[in-house]
């Protein structure tokens, strides 16, 4: 059974692109959510093998969603990669404090993203 990635972004454009990369350049399945609240719920239901999540989103941002996932037994161990336009060190530190495993900046380089996913999930 192929591994599953939960892609989270409030931008339809980013979601479209990241979904295309996952589905056409890897063997993984993709499920999506459009804000942090939905991501926390979907992570509980779907139990993905990895979460790829934007930071700045309505309702609940990526940092908060990351903390919530870390607090829940079912999602505590899932690798979380945060994706954002903000590349400042302080912002990245906040990401790691929230419990993420990795942090990448936009514009996302498709080849680097695939390599990163493979490093967590294998080919």
């Amino acid at each position, binding site marked *: 059974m192929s591994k599953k990635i939960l892609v989270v972004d409030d931008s339809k454009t980013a979601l479209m692109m990241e979904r295309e*990369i996952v589905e056409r350049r890897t063997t993984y399945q993709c499920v999506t959510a459009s804000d942090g609240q939905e991501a926390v719920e979907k992570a509980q239901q779907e139990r993905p093998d990895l979460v790829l999540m934007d930071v700045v989103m309505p309702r609940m941002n990526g940092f908060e969603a990351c903390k919530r996932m870390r607090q829940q037994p079912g999602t505590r161990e899932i690798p979380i990669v945060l994706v954002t336009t903000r590349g400042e060190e302080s912002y990245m530190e906040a990401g790691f404090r929230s419990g993420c495993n990795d942090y990448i900046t936009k*514009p996302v380089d498709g080849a680097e993203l695939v390599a990163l996913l493979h490093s967590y999930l294998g080919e």
Partner: protein
Amino acid sequence: MNGDKHIASGTKSSGAGMNDLRLEAARKRLSESRNQEDAIEALREIVANFLGSEEIGLFKVERRTATFQVYWSFGIDAENYDLLRALGEAGLQRVMRGECHVVLPSRERSGTVVRVQAFIPIRFANQTVAILAILRLLPQKVAFDRSDMELFKLLSEEAAKPLFGSSVHSMPVLEGPGIRA
């Protein structure tokens, strides 16, 4: 100006790969816009997510005065920026003819890095009906590259109708001498 580069809209594609996915996503997002407001959001998302800038201005041809007016901006107050004047008369004419204009990073005498700027003609029926100005890039984005030029071309050719709706059919043709920044 040193570092200026003029890139014709007909830039050759670099072929298959990740960039094709990006172009496909941008095209799909624009064409599936529900209305003009959603098309503007699509444009903002494309520039932020794919080109790496959160400072954007869109200028539309104003028929009555033969000038450009700020149609929409994000991350800047475009009214306070003399953006199109930075292009100069010759640059503006080139953009009006359909060429993208990219200002590459350079250093002023003071040592301050000049903001990277791109001016993209938004075309409909072989005429420029608006200009998209992209200002400062995100810190992690060093400069525009070849694949970005392909996205400029896509925006140039395909953004007018989603952005301006049916009004694009009645937008004025203002090329050559006479148009003012």
